[in-house]
């Protein structure tokens, strides 16, 4: 990417992000007013949040203005460097969320095993099944030994009592 392209990308990105921060800052400030600003001369619960929110709002406006001022050339920007990368990322996030939800029902051992299995299957080419299963199994076992047996950390037990 040339320097010019880089700047153009930055400009678009900055405009989007600064608008986002602006909205967050404004909403935050409005809510902070509910908590009271002053209580018999002393700062109340809402004062410092208001200041923080205002700071964000003002800063986001500054970034926005800076972004607009940059010399513009309408170039497309690549948000994702590889063709399939958005798929990889979303699948991973999905896996994380599923782990989180299943963890309480299936217990630590079961969920971890499935998690490893799933990610290894999805991401490996070519798929070596024995390798995948063995690695998943070993991961679960080692985590179990170190965390539960050795350090006695409390991890959820699912319906199978695992």
């Amino acid at each position, binding site marked *: 990417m040339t320097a010019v392209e880089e700047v153009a990308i930055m400009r678009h990105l900055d405009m989007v992000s600064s608008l986002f921060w602006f909205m967050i800052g404004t909403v935050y400030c409005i809510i902070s007013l509910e908590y009271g600003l002053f209580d018999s001369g*002393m700062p109340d*619960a809402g004062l410092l949040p208001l200041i923080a929110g205002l700071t964000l709002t003002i*800063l986001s406006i*500054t970034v926005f203005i800076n972004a607009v001022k940059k010399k513009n050339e309408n170039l497309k920007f690549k948000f994702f460097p590889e063709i399939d990368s958005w798929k990889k990322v979303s699948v991973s996030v999905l896996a994380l969320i599923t*782990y*989180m939800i299943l963890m309480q029902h299936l217990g630590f051992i079961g969920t*971890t095993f499935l998690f490893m299995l799933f990610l290894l299957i999805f991401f490996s080419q070519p798929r070596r099944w024995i390798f995948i299963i063995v690695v998943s199994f070993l991961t679960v076992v080692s985590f179990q030994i170190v965390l539960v047996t050795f350090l006695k950390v409390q991890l959820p037990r699912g319906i199978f009592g695992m």
Partner: protein
Amino acid sequence: MNFMNNLYWCLSIATEPVNIFVCFLGVFIGTIAGVLPGLGATTCIVLLLPATYGLSPTSAIIMLAGIYYGAMYGGSTTSILLNIPGEGSSMITCLDGYQMAKQGKAGPALSIAAIGSFIAGTFSVVMIMIIGPVLAEVALKFGPPEIFAITFLGMILVTYLGRGSMLKGLIMAAVGLMLSYIGTDSMSAKERYVFHIISLKDGIGFLPIMMGLFGIAEVLSNLEKKFTEGEIFKTTNGHFLPNKKELKDSSGPIARGTLVGFALGLIPGGGGILSSLVSYTMEKKLSKYPEKFGTGVIEGVAGPETANNAGAGGSFVPLLTLGFPCHVAMAALLAALMIHGVTPGPLLYKDHPDMFWGVIGSMYIGNVLLLMLNLPLIGLWVKLLKTPYLILFPMIFLFCLIGSYSLNSNIFDVAMTVLFGVIGYLMRKFEYEPAPLIMALILGPMFEVALRQSLIMSNGSPLIFLFRPISSVFIIISCILLFSPFLLKYFGRRRPGLLKEGGDEF
């Protein structure tokens, strides 16, 4: 106090075979606890307490204290290798440490961290022995105005953390502050931004956010690139120890970090994270090439790691000399002491001298053991890095997920980690750095509480900060730092590296 006499006494207790053994056990467990993100020294101390019932009180405390500073050593490991801070105070080490690892210099980074930690640890033990009670008195002098002044300085230093645009760094800091106010206001008992979600009553802990922003976000970013079954990390150059130049470059930061870290570690609650922040920004300002900070300079690892270990030693001072725990892990140690029949107080060194000196002596031994333990481990860690990313990345995810769960056995924390993982990933795309956010998140509550407490003390007058000697010093330093960019601009001299793209971008 007769120094040599005390030194002899504490070493003779600490070198009893039982005590060396339990000390080793403690620091070993502590190292693991420090390496695993989320799992902290405090939890380990409490969970392993029953295992100490058969030991004498002194031995028990030696082991449990070992867990604490073992964790301080271990925390830097994941920071450097995986960009996940193992402990809050190790976050700063991520900035340059991880970059060094990516360039194949993980070995030198880890060893400098261990060496610096050893020097700092030894220094703080010596200081505790010599002027322990004096330090306690000094620590007491830090009241709300002083804490406010220091955190104010900290907030300003936060903006120096990033490599990129200072403006964006400030935005991150503002967001961090805003996040820190979620929860129950400890001054008025009002709930802010809680919206009736019980798990938000105490706010969002910084550990889940940190694991999300650093750990998960990093992995998500890496997943975008192509990897077959190869590695993300360059192979190391083979040497695990720092070369001559690196040692020389680190000597200054280590020396300064030790002093700064120990001094700040005395502040209740300030300790580790402030020490490392101040050290990092100090090294950046003093360096001949500040713009290189954040790309993998050894000074960025040597200083902060030393500082946070020096701070850790300081945390023991209030507990041993006054009986006051200034840190959650110290509270756990306090409980352990009570279960073993000892209640610490200002007269601990009189009532239980063998415990007092035994613990201090074991800190010497512990530091030596940790150095001996960690240096060879570096070879192991570096080898682990060579694991194909295919296997490594799910494990990193698991570390983060399980780490957050282990904090409070609450699925909400895990949800926060995942949420901030996604947010962190997006942030990286839009070129925002997570470090200032976390820093503000941690300093924010201290800052606000100290401010409001001070104003109650002064009946609303802000002049209290200038009337008290310690706080006024810090306020003045802060103001100088705050206005220095403007002053320098007006007086001509250009400092490269602190501004990103010259001109209109501040």
